[in-house]
């Protein structure tokens, strides 16, 4: 019963060129930025240089924030595209149970995104480590926490996409949703980092818990002093996503399409 809606959503996703290109561009950004960064670092590194596992990992995953932007855009597009074109009404004629439609969209997006970003994250890691390995600066996939961190990068990317999807479903307007997700996922977390310089406790706390500041921890091996744990951080990020998603679900049921 639900399988048919999942198949329909997959057909929708694969049959629009812009969504497929956005997905591919996310993977390419991971590979190209991580690869270039690793290449540059290994070239300019002195013979005596030494990197921690976290540093080596981080360099190879240097494309993470850019890829997150692409995936978040994709998340916005898969739902706001339906509102922009009016296709949403056709979709709801076929599946009038609105939450079922939203759930199927979320499920298909999650699976597709996880497959692509996992492949991209591991490819970027191995490519980066190959460059760093020329100066013996590389980390190994078997080093403690590395496997989790690389897979964590894929989890963070997919979650970023769901953030976009939730905001797209809530705002129903492509430019508005894009601005919202870029602000919440990229710009405001950077600004929040500056709060850490403030004296007192609340500044650093806000910075720690703010969207991707918490969400990217799952893609790191050694969190900074006082930071949230990798899974706690990711959990906090999921809460940030759940809020607009639940609001979107409630409004989807109540609003006219």
């Amino acid at each position, binding site marked *: 019963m639900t399988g*048919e*809606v999942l*198949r*329909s*959503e997959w*057909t*929708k996703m694969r*049959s*629009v*060129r*812009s969504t497929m290109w956005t997905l591919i561009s996310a993977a390419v950004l991971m590979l190209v930025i991580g690869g270039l960064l690793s290449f540059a670092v290994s070239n300019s590194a002195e013979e005596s240089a030494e990197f921690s596992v976290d540093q080596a990992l981080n360099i190879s995953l240097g494309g993470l924030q850019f890829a997150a932007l692409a995936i978040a855009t994709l998340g916005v597009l898969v739902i706001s*595209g*339906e509102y922009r*074109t*009016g*296709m949403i*009404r*056709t*979709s*709801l*004629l*076929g*599946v*009038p*149970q609105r939450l079922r439609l939203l759930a199927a969209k979320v499920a298909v997006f999650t699976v597709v995104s996880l497959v692509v970003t996992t492949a991209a994250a591991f490819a970027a890691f191995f490519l980066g480590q190959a460059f760093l390995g020329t100066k013996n600066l590389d980390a190994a996939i078997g080093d403690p926490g590395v496997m989790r961190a690389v897979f964590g990068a894929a989890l963070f990317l997919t979650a970023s996409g769901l953030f976009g999807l939730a905001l797209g479903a809530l705002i129903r307007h492509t430019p508005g949703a894009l601005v919202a997700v870029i602000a919440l996922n990229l710009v405001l977390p950077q600004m929040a980092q500056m709060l850490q310089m403030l004296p007192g406790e609340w500044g650093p706390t806000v910075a720690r818990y703010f969207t991707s500041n918490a969400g990217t921890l799952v893609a790191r091996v050694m969190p900074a002093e006082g930071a949230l744990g990798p899974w706690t951080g990711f959990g906090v990020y999921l809460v940030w996503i759940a809020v607009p998603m639940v609001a979107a679900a409630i409004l989807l049921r*109540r609003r*006219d*399409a």
Partner: protein
Amino acid sequence: MTVPQQEEIRVPVGEPGSMSVIQARRLSKHYGQTVAVAGLSFDVEPGRVTGFLGPNGAGKSTTMRMILGLDRPSGGDVLIGGKHYGDLRHPLRRVGALLDAKAVHGGRSARDHLLCMAQSNALPASRVEEVLATVGLSAAAKRRIGGFSLGMSQRLGIAAALLGDPEILLFDEPVNGLDPEGILWIRTLMRKLAAEGRTVFVSSHLMSEMAQTADHLIVIGKGELIADTSVSEFIGRSSQGYVRVRSNRLAEVADLLGAGELHADHLRVTSMSAGDVGVLTMKAGLPLEELVFVQPTLEAAYMELTKETTEYEAVAS
């Protein structure tokens, strides 16, 4: 023990109790202070084309969207086969609808567009090819919909409506943007669908169009029901019919009859039949050039009825 599937227990069309397929009861829709639909009650029955007529802005599309569960009524209720649209499982197999033909993702091919719809209702992919052939779009199946003309989009929308072989069809202004050939095609299609016993509910703001397609009319203006009647009754209600008399001795004819309105080249008589006019003028030896009863047009009847409810009226300057 097997539990019958929902769609297997549908009541056969034509049996007592299933006659009213779409039932609207005191259906209303407000947008803030604006009233789009005000307490509409009507039934749409199978086996005939029911025209849903009203000027632009009368609330036709809003009513259709409420029937289809897209818009939530502010008051009242509307059921399809006794159920809310939202409670139908595999609704495309029971109800086909063409709303806005341009409300599709332009980046998708016609085939993929129909395929994702078919899949959502567990319809076989072969149905996609069948409906593409029915509407004459097989050759364009791989083309992106964004490049379609309005006429082609309209055909695609009709293909989508036919996808689940539904017994109820709703078309919102289906002839908009179609060329004469397309209009004839869609008219024939609607007649055929109704003849097969299906329920066909089609909206239009063009009376002339409805005159050629519909058996029954539901006329609304400013969201309110104006008429729910057969097409012939609707015409009969109008008092616009008259006898037109032409003669080279028109003034004498007018004097003789002692009735009618004298126009530049003809006399318009409403108080007697063409036969009576003929007998009287023959007896008086007055030659006539023309003696004809002018049928009231559906158009005129419609204009008269909706005159007071037209939302946007051209103001003579």
